[in-house]
């Protein structure tokens, strides 16, 4: 279970930091184990910022983030990194997630190598092929660099990478925005299957209300940095 308590984030810009944008304004949010919470709302309302704060990729100005009973805002360096392997981001812009100088294969293999999830090269390769096929890609894509894939192929490679470490919590930030609706349907089904198998919690940021209604247990609506509405679906 992940909880955000009284989270606030203000961005300053302009020459003397004179302009401020209150991106997240005193938000309380909980995502229970195995739950899918859809986060919807106007462009610029603070959804991605809130998602990144829950993963501690952005430090909040105020408030706390509690993951399985541990206050992440109090952790440092190594401890935070260790706990973070249980949390993943599928970013809104997939190019952010992958190093442009690495082949797709190596980008997906990296977390497997760091965390020694495969005993041999063969096992690593099998694991990667299985994941890449599950997202509808092929061996022929693995040897290429990120700019040599289509937008939607890259988005799916990032999804495959996020699933390698069997995470407990994933922030999916518009994860299917570059997919045709048939491919979107199979990817969403894949995410749901992983959820059933591993009890993953999702914060699913989307602009597609129809999609949110089909997949989510709850829908939260954000406006100007605040959560202004909540709806349970199932």
């Amino acid at each position, binding site marked *: 279970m992940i909880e955000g308590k009284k989270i606030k984030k203000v961005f300053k810009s*302009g020459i003397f930091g004179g302009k401020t944008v209150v991106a997240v304004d005193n938000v309380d949010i909980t995502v229970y184990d195995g739950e899918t919470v859809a986060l919807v709302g106007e*462009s610029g309302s603070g959804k991605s910022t809130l998602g990144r704060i829950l993963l501690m990729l952005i430090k909040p100005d105020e408030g706390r983030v509690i993951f399985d009973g541990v206050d992440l805002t109090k952790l440092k360096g190594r401890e935070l990194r260790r706990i973070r392997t249980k949390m993943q981001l599928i970013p*809104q812009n997939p190019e952010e997630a992958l190093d442009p100088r690495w082949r797709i294969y190596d980008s997906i293999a990296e977390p497997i190598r760091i965390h020694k999830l495969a005993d041999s090269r063969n096992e690593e390769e099998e694991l990667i092929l299985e994941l890449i096929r599950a997202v509808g890609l092929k061996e022929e894509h693995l040897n*290429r660099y990120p700019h040599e894939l289509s937008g939607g192929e890259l988005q799916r490679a990032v999804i495959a990478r996020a699933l390698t470490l069997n995470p407990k919590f994933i922030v999916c930030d518009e994860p299917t925005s570059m997919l*045709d*609706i*048939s*491919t979107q349907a199979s990817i969403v089904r894949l995410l749901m299957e992983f959820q059933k198998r591993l009890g993953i919690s999702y914060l699913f940021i989307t602009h597609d209300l129809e999609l949110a209604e089909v*997949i989510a247990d709850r829908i939260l609506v954000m406006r100007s940095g605040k959560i202004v509405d909540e709806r349970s679906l199932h």
Partner: protein
Amino acid sequence: MLEIEDLKVYFRTNAGKVKAVDGVSFEVKRREKFTLIGESGSGKSVLAQAILRLLPKNAEVSGKVLFDGRDLIELGEEDMRKIRGREIAWIPQSQSSLNPVLTVGFQCAEPVIEHFRTDKRSVFARVVRLFEFLGIGRSRVKDYPHQFSGGMRQRVLVAMGISADPKLIIADEPTKGLNASKRSQIVELFEKVGDKTMLIITHDLNFAENLADRIAVMYCGKIVEVSPAKEFFSEPLHPYSRGLLDSLPSRGLKPIKGFQPSMINPPKGCRFRDRCEFASERCKSEPPLINLNGRFVRCWLYDRR
């Protein structure tokens, strides 16, 4: 206005040749809003990049791209640079095409200043109006791309594309990551610049339905259907088109069975064959694009011979 004839784009890779666009022909008429939809990875963006000559060095291109009678494939880089931005605008799929060290307002004004040599102040005023129309306040015009949310950056790409008043707009996924009200602003904006010819690539079927005159559907490097938008949405012809419309979330999130085919070794015969519920013996040979009273479909089911 824009005529594409037997266009092919093959990429050389160490795993073989990727046949990303494999014999595509179509015409976009003056003032038409022509929309290209289709499977992820089927060659839509590569097709657009071939028209604008923005492909990397490992691409082999053949065929014709006639723009007002000139073949762009034959044009020198210098002439092409003049056409890009000024006569043909390009709204790319990737937000990384924004320059991280220039303000968003400057990036939108730059192409106008460069091509028309008009005074900066009036151009900036125009950019501010465009931003405000798209829901980005005046105070944010001097921000940098990283200070914007994903949807705000998307709107900047759109503003950049249309700021120089081009003849033809080619837009790749212009509404991705935008909520419904912002999407309809983009439709409105595209209609305002109304006498423009547009080639729009999108996965957003609502957007396509609201804007398009004609829809073309791409599958594995080929065009498999071209239909007027109304007819397409009420009665899609190609089995792939039907499968696509059936996978809308509101219809139960049912994907088309099977996977995107290899583009290095595409399936023989009809490329949709192993996923098609109507496949028969003759689908082992490749179907031609069949003309049905002005609609076009590449499928043997419509062959009345």
